[in-house]
């Protein structure tokens, strides 16, 4: 199982805070997971296609081609605006 979190404007637009993905014990690149999620609806397709989408694996910022495995925590969010 891979836990997928969404934050801020993205969380609101998807109306989803957390999504559990059954990974069947496989490792896979984040890009593959994104494709699965995009197929859920036109809205998900649109929101997850944004060029400024950021991704973290196990709470570290990573590029989208990073591979994730069972038990990993994956997060998607818009550009950060703290400080």
């Amino acid at each position: 199982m891979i836990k997928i979190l969404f934050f801020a404007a993205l969380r609101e637009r998807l109306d989803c805070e957390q999504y559990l993905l059954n990974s069947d014990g496989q490792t896979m690149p984040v890009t593959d997971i994104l494709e699965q999620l995009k197929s859920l609806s036109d809205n998900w397709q649109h929101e997850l296609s944004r060029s400024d989408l950021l991704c973290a694996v196990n709470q570290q910022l990573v590029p989208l081609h990073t591979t994730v495995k069972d038990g990993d925590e994956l997060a998607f969010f818009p550009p950060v605006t703290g400080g």
Partner: protein
Amino acid sequence: MSVFVAVQSDDFCLASEYHELRRNAACGAVVTFSGLVRELNDTALYGMTLEHYPGMTEQALIDIAKQAQQRWPLGAVRIIHRVGTLKPIEQIVFVGIASAHRAAAFAACEFIMDYLKNRAPFWKKEHTANGEYWVDAKASDQQALTRWE
């Protein structure tokens, strides 16, 4: 080198932070940055809500502090970032540096703010007279990183 990082809804006190930063008798230079909720140009701001990614925020701030420590000789680094709902002129963020050298203290403090603005998972939503809006990331904040590369 001591590193202190906090993500909290409570306000912080500059005087207490400064007191901690002054403990190292070898450090003659203390630089602080405080970020405050400021007025908007075009509409009245009632306040803002700061969302964050619990766990990752603390980790990101520690990473940034350690990067600064690798670049400059620092005695102490303190970073505090607030989350939750804040009113105008309230404090949002504090970065404090103690060093033997003022140039290192200034550089490290600015470096940490520049990285925090681009890498730490916080998001601001403004509550204004015209409605609620997520704040857009600024190109100037991304641009600021280039001087450290």
